[in-house]
């Protein structure tokens, strides 16, 4: 995969308040990246820096290896789905979605397109071997520019040649009239293909309809955005952001205001859209479950720093420190000592494990996920205690077992009565050893 965005040592301070303490991050094409962290960790600021709404205090933001910090928000190839949607209250659903297209169809943009073409051709012309190809390229460039300036130019030329033919006709000949009429008919059919404002508007309408269909909002075009439910407003915001076909879509907690059921549906739909459209999504959330469900890559942030970057499975199974372990899912975190490779000791007992590469007798943190622990009959494992509390969670029971050293939280489908004496067991691969931070 190709690298699309790179943040290099990006910092941001609002007055005394340091929000980002040097972010380094690489984002690839077609990736679904989630910035995950508690509120105030700097994830939204990072997103806003990429979108161009906030300037970083220092550092670089590269897009395709080019620094984009000098490019204003309205010229960046990014689009944003805002947390509070920010739909335009004076426009209906259709016009909200069409907004981006209308913004891009003006003279300034024509000039921008021409400049871009010139840049592209400049390189080609410089690299051209002989003067002949150079000339060819130059002609090609001029043609393209003419076409941008006037999309009807080819048709107009055709009409001109036909008119010349009419001029050249022999007026005295018998079939002069029919020939002339035929030519005029031809001109008429060519004119029908002209790109007029009407044709352009039709093309815009088709495109808006396509995107409305994509987010399942057909039939809502003329609805006022106030009369939509939260989920529908959300979809309008997504369609509005996607219609400009951005390289990167930035989503700032877009699902936070929706109820659970709708949120799960939208999670699925967003993932589908991302896969089909082939766009990079950068998604900000504080909901770890959302992050685990949707992401290709999770960036866990806390206090203005990146804690860990990785695939959802890796982040969950191999959290790099206690913050990540606590933030992603529930866990029992135990202080221990790495005796040697594959041997860890905690609460006075040595256990075999799968971790290695630590120093001998290094202090470490150990993560035991609640669902990895089992309750077994008393005495069948070195850890024993009393069932302290039982809570029904739907799929499983959450059972706290109190031992002489600590309380273990266990997720199990088997009910255990409170006060029962039991033992707790786990496999060696369930032990996750982390360096202390």
């Amino acid at each position, binding site marked *: 995969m190709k690298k699309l965005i790179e943040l290099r040592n990006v910092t941001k301070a609002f007055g005394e308040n340091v929000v980002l303490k040097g972010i380094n991050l690489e984002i690839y094409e077609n990736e679904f990246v989630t910035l995950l962290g508690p509120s105030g960790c700097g994830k939204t600021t990072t997103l806003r820096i990429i*979108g*161009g*709404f906030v300037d970083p205090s220092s550092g670089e933001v590269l897009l395709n290896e080019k620094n984009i910090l000098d490019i*204003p*928000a*309205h*010229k960046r190839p*990014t*689009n*944003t789905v*805002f947390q*509070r949607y*920010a*739909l*335009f*209250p*004076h426009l209906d659903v259709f016009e909200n979605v069409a*907004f*981006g297209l*209308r*913004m*891009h169809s*003006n003279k*300034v*943009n024509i000039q921008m397109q021409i400049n871009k073409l010139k840049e592209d051709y400049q390189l080609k012309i410089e690299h051209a071997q002989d003067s002949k190809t150079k000339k060819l390229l130059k002609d090609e460039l001029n043609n393209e520019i003419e076409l941008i300036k006037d999309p009807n130019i080819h048709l107009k030329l055709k009409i001109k040649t036909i008119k010349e033919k009419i001029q050249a006709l022999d007026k005295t000949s018998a079939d002069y009239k029919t020939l002339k009429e035929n030519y005029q008919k031809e001109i008429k059919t060519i004119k029908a293909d002209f790109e007029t404002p009407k044709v352009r508007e039709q093309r815009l309408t088709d495109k808006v309809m396509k995107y409305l269909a994509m987010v399942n909002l057909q039939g809502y075009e003329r609805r*006022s955005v*106030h009369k939509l439910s939260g989920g529908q407003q959300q979809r309008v915001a997504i369609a*509005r*952001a996607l219609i*400009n076909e951005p390289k990167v879509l930035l989503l700032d907690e877009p699902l936070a205001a929706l109820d659970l059921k709708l949120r799960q549906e939208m999670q699925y739909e967003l993932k589908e859209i991302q896969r089909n459209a082939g766009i990079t999504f950068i998604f900000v959330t504080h909901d770890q479950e959302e992050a685990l469900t949707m992401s290709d890559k999770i960036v866990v942030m806390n206090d203005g720093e990146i804690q860990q970057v990785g695939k959802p499975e890796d982040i969950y199974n191999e959290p790099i420190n206690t913050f990540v372990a606590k933030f992603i899912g529930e866990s029992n975190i135990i202080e221990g000592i790495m005796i040697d490779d594959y041997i860890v000791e905690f609460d006075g007992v040595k256990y075999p494990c799968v971790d290695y590469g630590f120093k001998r007798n290094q202090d470490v943190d150990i993560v035991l996920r609640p669902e990895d622990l089992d309750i077994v009959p008393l005495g069948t494992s070195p850890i024993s205690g009393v069932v302290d509390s039982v809570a029904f969670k739907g799929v499983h029971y959450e059972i706290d077992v109190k031992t002489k050293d600590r309380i273990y939280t266990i997720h199990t489908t088997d009910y255990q009565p409170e006060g029962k004496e039991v033992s707790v067991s786990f496999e060696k691969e369930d032990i996750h050893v982390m360096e202390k931070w």
Partner: protein
Amino acid sequence: MFQGPLSIAKREKRKIKAKPYTFLGIPYYVLLTSLIVIPLILIIFYSITIQEQGLYYKFTLDYFTQFFSEQEFVRVMADSIILAIITTLICLIIGYPLAYYITKRRPITQAILILLITAPMWINMLIRTVAWKQIFDMINPSLLGSDFAIILGMVYVFLPFMVLPIYTVLSKIDPLLYEASADLGGSNMKTFRKVTLPLSISGVLSGITMVLLPAATTMVIPRYLGQNRVLIGTLIERKFYDSGNWGYGAAIAIVLSLIIMIMVFFTKKLDRNKEIEHDEKT
């Protein structure tokens, strides 16, 4: 069978519940009737009747035909309205950018600037107008009586009425909308045209109404800055008090009101999105 009395009791309870609300409107309705509706009826009555003998009144449109046949008076009315329109336009040209600028400041600066704009209103308008007269006397007395002096005085007095409603509407626009527009490719100019202006048009229209109406009928400003130039307000006043011709005065007042009403009606038409009120959700 037993539900009957119960539901009646319920209904009565609901009636009592709704009552405190209706009470709140009463002072306004009393004022409305006694100070607006009744005088309006009287004005209309005076303008279309003529007293024959004692209490006997006869319907007539003489006052209206008389007014429109007197070229001089029609010209005075046209003058007044043109001056009012120019004043309104100048207020708008100064007021909108000012209001926009204020909304971009920090909240504390905004409060101070708004205070400064409303501050002149704490001083009696007559005193302020006389002050302007003295300034003109000092600088260039020949300007007194010109359109320039009258317009300047009116702009000075009525500008706050243009700035305040526009400021109120502009400050309510969610700044996120500007970001959304920029995000979708809107330059500053386009964002202003497609987002800011349509969302603030209601403020502009109330500003126009609040400046145009008093500017068209003011008496104080033409008296002091216009060197007793007769504009429509003064004309109506004279008919009522000096010549005691209430019917004629009332007829002029009605013609003026009708013209202004038509103007306001057409400006309101400009508000294409009036059914979209501001988002109550924040």
